[in-house]
């Protein structure tokens, strides 16, 4: 009766932004990104990549409630960088890594096919 529709898990409703950023009022160089309609798949990957950045002092994510389909990623950086910079850098590094993985996999598959002939 109270369960949300299944498509709510991935369809962003009209008028809501996919990502929103809020500066942290109390701490310098810190902020929280609220990402709508995503879950651990994206949250954990972004968080682990943020940890690799030496300018990032704090990075964590949570799902405030399992029936509310959003994640909050909290980032704090040194003054050499900013949360938004670190976040975008992490995302672009992940994109490059996945592209590298895709090419490596495709070439392995192609090699396998040629090995048969």
């Amino acid at each position: 009766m109270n369960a949300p529709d299944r498509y709510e898990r991935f369809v962003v409703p009209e008028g809501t932004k996919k990502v929103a950023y809020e500066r942290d009022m109390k701490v310098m160089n810190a902020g929280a990104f609220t990402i709508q309609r995503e879950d651990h798949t994206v949250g954990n990957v972004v968080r682990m990549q943020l940890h690799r950045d030496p300018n990032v002092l704090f990075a964590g994510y949570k799902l405030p409630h399992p029936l509310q389909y959003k994640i909050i990623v909290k980032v704090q950086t040194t003054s050499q960088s900013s949360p938004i910079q670190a976040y975008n850098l992490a995302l672009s590094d992940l994109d490059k890594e996945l592209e590298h993985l895709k090419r490596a996999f495709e070439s392995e598959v192609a090699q396998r096919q040629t090995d048969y002939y």
Partner: protein
Amino acid sequence: MEASYQRFPTVRIRDLKDDFLKFELRDTDASIANALRRVIIAEVPTLAIDLVEIEANSSVLNDEFIAHRLGLIPLTSDKAMEMRYSRDCDECDGDGRCDYCSIEFTLSVKCTSEETLDVTSHDLQSSDSQVVPVDSIGHDPDIENFNQKKGILIVKLRKGQELKLRAIARKGIAKDHAKWSPAATVTFQYEPDIHINENLMETLSVEEKREWVDSSPTKVFEINPETQQVEVIDPEAYTYDDEVIKKAEAMGKPGLVEIYGKEDSFIFTVESTGAIKAAQMFLNAIEILRSKLDAVKLNFGSDEADEQFGDLGAHMRGGF
């Protein structure tokens, strides 16, 4: 600002068949391996029957029961990645029935003989020859359907019973309903790193070695018949139960063996239902994960960004 903390993953395929893929993924993080696993199971799009209009049904199963079973039939979904979702389709105003976003199926069967008629997925006629129910071939030599293509059984009919319906198949993902999942099972394990302390092993008698080797529920170790030494014969059979470690401690020899899972080395097993080939499923998953990460980027320089940040430009640029 050209720093990059990118990793460079490597892949080595061990086994590649149409519906089964086993490979090693190295030099990447567990979060990526897990994200890929989650995306393969839940977010790779396929096609499945989503709307059923029943004209006649005098079988023993009721309408919604049959509709449910039809939805679960896997359909060959190679064109799923290019198709549009029904809700996004402008051609048909979201009606969900045009050529760009849906495939139509018909089923029309009546039992006229005294024998029971099996209505299978072979009886489903598709409007598109590329999208048909997946055919499975019997694998068990003891059952009579060995090496024959057998369709998926939908319902059985007696003489005089009839089933006539139209069905629309649409693109979807398993997050919406599990019928859209292309994966049978997807697993990954950490590759084990096993070190036997040879000095301590020397202090064991052959019977003690045999006892220790047998304490493992899976066959990881074996005693070499010639040298009487304990060897690792199948490290990947290790299931990270600590039975051998507990046995070593019980025998009074702690530290006899050290076993760790390598943190950046994974062995993936991907099995498909037949809707999409296993290797193609993995490639689709990478693309989908990339587009998810792209959707999550924060764009500055757009109107929204100015509105949100405005004079926080200094904060954005790193506090200078």
